[in-house]
């Protein structure tokens, strides 16, 4: 009844040349390979916020939850804790994830909850037509900062590392094969995984040329070593002019929050009534 084709009838409305297309292509490829390897199709749930990136859920024909701006992470945690069979894959913009809803991200990392965060980090608010975000470089002239921002960006990977995330990676929308690899590893990772994708917004912050000059793929990097991960993560602060590493920075095994809940057991109405009445006896 359901086609294994992952495309919906929704019309794609991203700008031509937008980096979101690469993310869409990569994630569909990864989903297909997971399905081929035996993951039941219906055990995927994707969640997005609000922004250009978020439209991705309209374009992929799997269970989805198009939520509100900045609130992907709590939704994802609810879904995962409620149904641990699901692979919960989240798409969030940098405005969403690092701005409006940053706090949730930190707490999900702290809990090491088993979800995958894919951040479409175009370093600008796309859908609201071009304001600075927490990862825009110092001096960025957006519509809300026509004279240039006066604040340094955050380094989201550094923040994630200090929050307890157990899988931290960076991709780039022009390196499609790497994206596929990162997405797949992130999804397979048991615990909280975040892939920050440098997703170019051709309309409001076209960084293709710049990134093409500055990115490199991490080689022989020990992803188990906190200090090395930190050094590599701090190599580029999302503002200054320096080499930008791509790949997995950090990876660690640890238990996840969602392992700790009782399973829901369907209960008969009369059994429950008896249980309640029994407990009521303690209140005399």
């Amino acid at each position: 009844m359901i086609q294994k084709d992952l495309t919906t009838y929704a019309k794609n409305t991203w700008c031509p040349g937008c980096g979101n297309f690469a993310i869409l292509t990569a994630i569909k490829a990864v989903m297909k390979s997971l399905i081929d390897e035996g993951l039941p199709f219906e055990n995927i749930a994707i969640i997005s916020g609000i922004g250009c990136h978020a439209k991705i859920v309209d374009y992929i024909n799997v269970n989805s939850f198009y939520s509100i701006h900045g609130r992907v992470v709590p939704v994802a945690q609810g879904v995962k804790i409620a149904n641990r069979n699901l692979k919960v894959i989240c798409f969030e913009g940098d405005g969403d994830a690092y701005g409006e809803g940053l706090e949730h991200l930190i707490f999900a990392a702290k809990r090491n909850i088993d979800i995958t965060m894919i951040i479409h980090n175009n370093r600008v608010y796309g859908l609201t037509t071009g304001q600075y975000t927490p990862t825009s470089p110092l001096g960025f002239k957006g519509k809300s900062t026509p004279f240039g921002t006066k604040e340094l960006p955050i380094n989201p990977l550094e923040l994630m590392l200090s929050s307890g995330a157990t899988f931290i990676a960076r991709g780039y929308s022009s390196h499609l094969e790497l994206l596929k690899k990162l997405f797949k590893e992130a999804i397979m990772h048991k615990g909280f995984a975040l892939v920050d994708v440098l997703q170019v917004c051709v309309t409001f912050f076209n960084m293709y040329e710049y990134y093409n000059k500055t990115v490199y793929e991490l080689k022989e990097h020990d992803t188990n070593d906190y200090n090395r991960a930190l050094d590599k993560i701090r190599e580029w602060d999302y503002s200054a002019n320096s080499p930008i590493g791509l790949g997995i920075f950090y990876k660690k095994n640890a238990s996840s929050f969602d392992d700790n809940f009782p399973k829901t057991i369907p209960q008969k109405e009369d059994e429950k009534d008896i249980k309640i009445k029994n407990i009521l006896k303690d209140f005399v």
Partner: protein
Amino acid sequence: MKEFSLLLGGMAGDGIDKASLILARILNRLGYCIYIYREYPSIIRGGHTYSIIRASQNKITTHTNKVDCILALNQDCLSLHKDRLKNDSFIIYDSDAVKPEGLPLIKQLQGIPLDKIIKEEKALAVTRNSCIIGSFCKASGIKMEILEDVFKRNISRELDMNLKVALKGNENTKELFKLEKISERCFPIFTGNEAISFGLIKGGLNSYIAYPMTPTSNILHFLASLAEKFSLKVIHPENEISVMLMAEGFAYAGERVAVGTAGGGFCLMTEGLTFAGMAELPVVIILGQRTGPSTGLPTYTGQTELHFALNAGQGEFTRLVIAPGDAEEAYFWSALCLNLVWKYQLPGIILVDKTLCEGTYSFNIDAIENIKKCEPVLWDRKEQYKRYLNTETGISPLAFPSDKDAIIKINSYEHDEAGITIEDSVTTKDMCDKRLRKEKYLLEELIEYKPVRVYENANSTVGIICWGSNKGVCIEAGQNLGFKIIQPVVLSPFPKEEFKSAISGLKKIICVENNATGQLIKLIKYYGFDVDEKILKYDGRPFSLDELENELRKIL
């Protein structure tokens, strides 16, 4: 005695709360029905706090200003409450800490040296209240076996020490009169919060999510303690935004979920609330009112969020708002609310207040009406699954992630039946109609459950209308003065016809509320009704029975 009222007061940290529950349970053993009113400051230790424990042969859910007995652990207790004494009231006080001066003429006054006793027994300071309970039992002629049994069931730490100290108190007191056993019944006694918790469990709760906030924090604590027993997932996340959105994740995945908060936290949930309206996700919100605006008096009561609950969130959609009036109603309607939001796929609000949440009641589960379990409409697998299938009732059949062959797409944007974003004007209007249409069917179903309750003197031409925790005090006052009481329990969708017939024939309508602007009046005016008089109280305290009766007499 038909009725007996006692006040226990001391400093925050003295364990007044626990002690008053024990006192209540002792009186319960004599066959009385109980109501406890608690007043305490937003302070952990120090500061005066007290409980009024009222015991009656009838079912009661309110307290009186006047009391038959005061048990005073500190001086404030006597100075602040002396006006509550009647001519034949008696006082037991800690003679090591309290000077019984400036009191009205009181015949019976009993001091016991609590500090001294405790030192002698090498007991903890907090056992002072056990000592005074022992003393009270003697004064009122209650057998120590009853005290012992209640202590055993209610005190887990240092039981022996407490018993010993209680015995000392008992020995140091003389019997003043005899509270006899008046019946064999012995109901469990607990708070509105606990009743809500049981109600949610009865309604099939799988998960409870909350960030602590008075007056609903104890639902979180209580359900957390029951998590293992009822396979509940109880979570306390980083803030209320997370609470609400996490709950919506649960609802999507097919788990019955409720959240609890007070006004400030509810503010932060409103964006999630309108999302639940749009996405048609069933979530129950327990909203406990307290004295506002803003932080206000966080441990005191109020009824100021009616219109906030009715109108929170952008856009228009069907919502269920229910204000139960006491513990039994809290149980019944919490269970029903969870059932109904799942059937109709919408957010539901249980609107309560500090008075109900933290008031303590005798609870008779057998008196509670039957709750039909109404099952959600599930996908029949015949046609391709569409999450927002536009049906006659507005209800779309449900499926959940992991269900074979279904693709379930939730959307906060306006969407088509499959859940894909749209912007055209025809679908926009159709989907808005779909969501609003559910109201009609929901209301029809609610009628079965008598959404407007009527009590006492059905033939009286004077009626009191009230909502929420004022139910009990209005009923008793109505009884005493011969009025009819009308309590709309369901506030949205508003049961207009039921309300109309409830007030028909009345010559004078008086509205009683705990707010300054008359929020229920505002609501009924929209439906074309009006009131003749209003009695509004907004100092953070609920009406006591005698106070309300006075106010009512002034009007007539």
